[in-house]
Every structure is written in C-alpha cells, then in structure tokens.
C-alpha cells in the first residue's frame, strides 16, 4: 500500500513539474567580440541586450536564456559555435553575424537543423535571392540596398563626374556595382584599394589629378577612419563633394571628427524620427551604455522584438515552427524604424534616408537626416527567391 502511494506520489510530482514549468526560450547570439572589428559586435550586442531588458528578460513571455559566442571573424569558428549551440544548448533561435562570409558559412547547417537564423547585420545577396530560406530572416538589410540608395542620392542631386573608390574585395565591388544601378552619369575614374590599406595619400593624389566633381567611397571600419582623416587634411573637400557608404555613421563619427563635415551618406535608420520606440531605444541605450547608438545597435535591437512577437503569436509553443515563421513574416512588432514589413525573401522593405554631416552647436561633427531617398524600398534580389507566402 505504502509503495503504491509513494509511487503515485512520485508520478504526480513529476507530472506537476512538467506541466507547470514553461519552456525556457534559448537564443544563441554569435558575433565578433575580439580583434580589430570588435566594436561592431559590441554595438549589436548592446542593442540586442537592451531589447531583452525592455522585454523584462522574457522574450515572448518565456524565461529567456541567451548564449553568447565570439566568432573571432572566422567562418570556421562561427560554424562550430552554431553547431554547438544547436546540438548542446538546443537553442531555438540563432541571431547575430556581422560578416557576409560568416553568414554563408553558418546558414546551411543552422537552417537544415530547422533552427531560425536571424542576421542582425550580414546582408549577403545570395540569401536575399536564390538561397533564401524559410528559416532565415534578417533585421538589417541586403548589402546592395545602401549603395543603390547612394546612387539614387547622387543621381537626384545632379552631381556628375564621379570618381569611385572601394577596397578590393567582394563587398567593395558590390558597393560600386550597386551604386551604378541608379547613378547614370559619368564615371571619371575608379580605384580598388588594397584591403586593410591605411595610407591613402597616393590615392588622394590620383583623385586630384582626375579632377572629378564628386567622390564616392566605400571604406568600412579603420580604413574609413584613416581615409576620412587624410581626406580632411588634403584640402580637397572644398572642391570635390564626398559621398560615402558604410563609412560614416554613429560608430565612426567620433574618431573621424570634423573631417566628416559636409559629406553625405544614406542609412535605413532615421535616428531623429519621433517614433516613441526609437526615442526610448536611444535614451535608454545612452543611459545604460554611455554612448550614442549606431544603426548597428538599432538593427540588432529589432531582433528580440521580432522573436517576441512570433513566440507570443504561438502562445509559447516553440515546437510550432510553421506558426513561428508565419508570425515572423507578419513582423507584428513596433520597430525602431517605424513600420516594419518583410518582403517575400525575409528581407525588410524599408526607407532609406539622406543623411548629412554638419557642424553641431559645439563645433563637432553631427549627423542629421535631411530627406528620404527611397520609400519602402525592396532589394534587387527578391525576384530570384522562390518562396511564396
């Protein structure tokens, strides 16, 4: 008699714990936290973490555990981190990834395991086109959207005789190609510089010799900081209008300093919009971390909000992957961008703004939004994507 009581008591206790305990939501976050480009990973992580704070640590109403991994900017490290997070930690979502080549390395194994992969930065074009996947979403953009918006900006401004410069790697070439899709004027010269090169005096001399009206550059990270400083020191800013892409933003503005004043660029994020979610994001970000967020932080902030909206829609049933996907496609959450809408290839349809760097009240460089280049802009690859919904 006693044994039966104990046994049924044990069974009852077991049933109680399994029925009462809600599942923990596990998100794997992979980004670059070491090395020269660690600042990009930091901005995104800070944005991502702030969103989770704003959700009270409970994404989708479930207790949330985030497992972080440093990919060290290496594709093989990123892939083994992703594999470990899926097999050992059993994550439901993997988010992050700054670099397009790392994205291409991890996407196959993550999506094949039927785990949702959300890029908070990398916008490799194959993922927007032929390799689009029901388990892959991005909260950033497609790589070509920014240079295309730049081309449109320069075309609309009526500036002509463009000289172009970018580092000699895939992204550099894409930035020049995307620009030419919308800029139809004359190109007086083009230089592909060595990736990682920091001294641009020779290139600046060549630009001067070519006598362009306009200079369009793509110089990410440290390359851009070095180039902009040297451009500022060259005195050519008076006679040649400089347009940049992925070079001047809230992340690089301080080290570049006054050399950025008078330049134009585009971005999907209007940091000055009075959208309350955006204003709260900026204010709380500055309070928590002590610096002004960049668009990298903004795009990463949207990721937990996206996951939250999807998990709520399926009432916390993480095994209902189709339901989660349908909810993610609806993107029914309040984004820092204002309206957030997905295209058929899971790339956002969003605005691109014209931004200018001006001298602020204290004389330092300040970014202001001065117009819209593209409204509800779709990327150029979605027609190659076979998904329909």
């Amino acid at each position, binding site marked *: 008699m006693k044994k039966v009581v104990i046994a049924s008591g044990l069974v009852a206790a077991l049933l109680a714990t399994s029925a009462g305990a809600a599942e923990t939501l596990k998100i794997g976050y992979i980004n670059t936290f070491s090395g020269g480009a660690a*600042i990009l990973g930091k901005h995104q992580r800070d944005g991502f973490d702030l969103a989770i704070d704003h959700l009270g640590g409970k994404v989708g109403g479930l207790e949330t555990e985030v497992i972080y991994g440093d990919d060290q900017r290496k594709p093989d490290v990123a892939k083994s981190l992703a594999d470990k997070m899926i097999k050992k930690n059993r994550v439901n979502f993997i988010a992050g990834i700054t670099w397009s080549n790392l994205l291409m390395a991890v996407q196959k194994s993550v999506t094949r395991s039927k785990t949702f992969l959300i890029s908070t930065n990398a916008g490799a074009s194959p993922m927007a086109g032929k390799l689009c996947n029901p388990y892959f979403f991005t909260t950033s953009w497609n790589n070509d959207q920014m240079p295309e918006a730049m081309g449109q900006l320069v075309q609309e401004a009526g500036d002509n005789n463009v000289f172009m410069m970018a580092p000699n790697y895939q992204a550099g070439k894409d930035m020049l190609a995307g620009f030419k899709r919308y800029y139809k004027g004359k190109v007086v010269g083009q230089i592909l*510089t*060595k990736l990682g090169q920091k*001294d641009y*005096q020779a290139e600046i001399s060549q630009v001067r010799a070519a006598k362009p009206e306009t200079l369009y550059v793509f110089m990410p990270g440290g390359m851009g900081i070095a180039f902009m400083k040297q451009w500022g020191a060259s*005195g050519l800013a008076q006679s040649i209008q400089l347009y940049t892409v992925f070079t001047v933003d809230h992340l690089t503005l301080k080290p570049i*300093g006054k050399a950025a004043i008078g330049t134009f660029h585009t971005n999907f994020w209007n940091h000055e919009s009075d959208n309350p979610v955006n204003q709260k994001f900026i204010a709380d970000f500055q309070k928590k971390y002590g610096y002004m967020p960049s668009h990298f932080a903004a795009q990463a902030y949207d990721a937990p909000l996206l996951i939250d909206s999807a998990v709520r829609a399926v009432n916390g049933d993480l095994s209902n992957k189709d339901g989660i996907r349908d909810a993610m496609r609806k993107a029914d959450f309040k984004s820092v961008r204002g309206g957030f809408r997905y295209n058929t290839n899971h790339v956002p349809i969003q605005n691109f703004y014209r931004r200018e760097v001006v001298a602020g009240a204290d004389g330092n460089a300040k970014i202001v939004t001065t117009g819209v280049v593209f409204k509800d802009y779709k990327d150029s690859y979605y027609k190659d994507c076979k998904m329909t919904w």
Partner: protein
Amino acid sequence: MAMSLPLILEQTLNGFQFGVFLFLIAAGLTLIFGIMNLVNLVHGSLYMMGAYFAAVAYQWSGSFLVALAVALPASFVVGIVLEIVALRTLYQRDHLDQVLATFGLILFFNQLMIFVFGAASQEMNLPQGLEGHVEIIAGAPYPTYRLVIIATGLAVALALYYLISRTRAGMLIRAGASNRAMIAALGINIRLLFTGIFGLGAMLAGLSGAMAGPILSVEPGMGEDMLILSFVVIVIGGIGSVQGAFVASVIVGVVETLGRSIIPFLLERILSNEAAQTAGPAITSMTIYILMAAVLFFRPRGLFPAKGG
C-alpha cells in the same frame, strides 16, 4: 586615369614619405632581429601601444608634444618590461618558437587594448598648426603634417647613424650584429645590451605609432598592417643593418606607391577597361613581394648585410 609628370613627382614624394615612415618601424625591428636573432612579431603591438599612449595623452592634455613626451618613455618602459618578463627566454630558441610566442603576444596585446580602452577607435586629430598644406610641387598642396613625418624620420635616421657609428654603445650594437658569441666572450654584459636594444626598438616603434595616430586609425590590431611590410623591408635591406633598413624603406615606399599609380595606368593601355580594373589592384599588391624576391635572387643576404665574414 590621368598621368603626368607633376603627378609622378607627387607620387614619388608620397612614396618617399611612406618609406620614411616605414623606416621608423623597420629600424627597431632590424636591430632586434639582427642582434638578438629574435623574430619579433610583437613589434607591431609596440607600434600600436605607442599610438594608444599618444592618443590618450593627447586627449587628456590637448598638446601633441605632451603626447609624444608620454608615448616615448612609456613605449621604452613597456619594451623593457616585455623583454625581461616574456622574451628573454626566447633567444636560445628556434625561430618558429619565437614566431609562436610573439604571435601569442600580439593576440594578448590586442585584447588588452580592448579591455583597457574599449573596442572603439581612439580619437586623435592633427596637431593644431600642422593642419595646413605646403605647395612643394606646383598645383599639388602637400599636407604639412606629412612633411613633419619626413623630418622626424630623417632626424631619427641621423640620430641612429650617430649612435651606431660614433658611440661606444653603437660599437657594441654593430659588434653584436656581426658576431654575438664573440662579444659575450669579450666580457660585455649581453643581458643589459639586449634589454637596452629592445627598449630602443620599442621606443622607435612607439614613436612611429604616435606619429601615425593623427592620420590613421588608432584601433586594436593596427600593428598588423605594418608588420608584414616591415619584415619585407628588413629582408630587402639586410637584417641587422639600420643603413639597409633606411635604403630599403625608401625603395619599398617609392616602388609601392608608384606601382599603385603607374601599374593601373599601364594596364588600361594594354588591356580592356574591365580586365585592367580586375588585374590592376591584384598586380599592384604583388609589386613589393616581387621586388623582394628579385633582390634576394641577386643578393640573398639583402642589400647591406650586417654580418661580417
């Protein structure tokens, strides 16, 4: 792509300045490799730390001279400490062991910078008063600050020349580069000499980092950009020879810079525009390595080998 005599002159000047800047880094490296037989990959990190010391001191004081006055002794001290704590044990070891150890130190220092200063690039502007231009070549304003870099490099070259050929310490340095075992046998305190040389090399690297700060990006990992180029320079110049380092730096600087302008120009004349734009950058990146291979083919020990018979 435009090409004219004034442009070629301008690019030669640019190349000369780049070469002088390379010399500041290569001088210390060649001494360390030549005298202590140490493959010192940490040299790039010492350059980085010089830049960081200068950037932080400049932000705090607002004066570039104060920044230099802080960065130079600080780099010297870091060099000495590093030598005593970590590198002394490596002298007897194989070059590959030294590569492994000093590469590990590169990773350590990069992360140390992120830990102490954060991952963002440090602010460092051009010193006030040096923001203008000088028209050395008609129609081509040349940044004043870069002239200051040339002047600094030449001053360091002269100072090193004086040190090495006219002082007793310099004599020990030359003797050490020529035959290490012999000077130990003659009763010279090798330990002190090596520590001193490493400190000097570190200080030179720190100086070049501090000078680079206003025009480049002060960030973790900035040393690695310069490292490979410096090794190319000292191999071409002759390991252990400061004279060789100077000549090789200027040659490498000018060839690299002229290559970047002339090769695409020539290719556009020979190939189609499309092919030129693809091949140009690729071939340009190879120029100095082809130069190095050519020099080594004719002079396997470099242009000014330090090791005597």
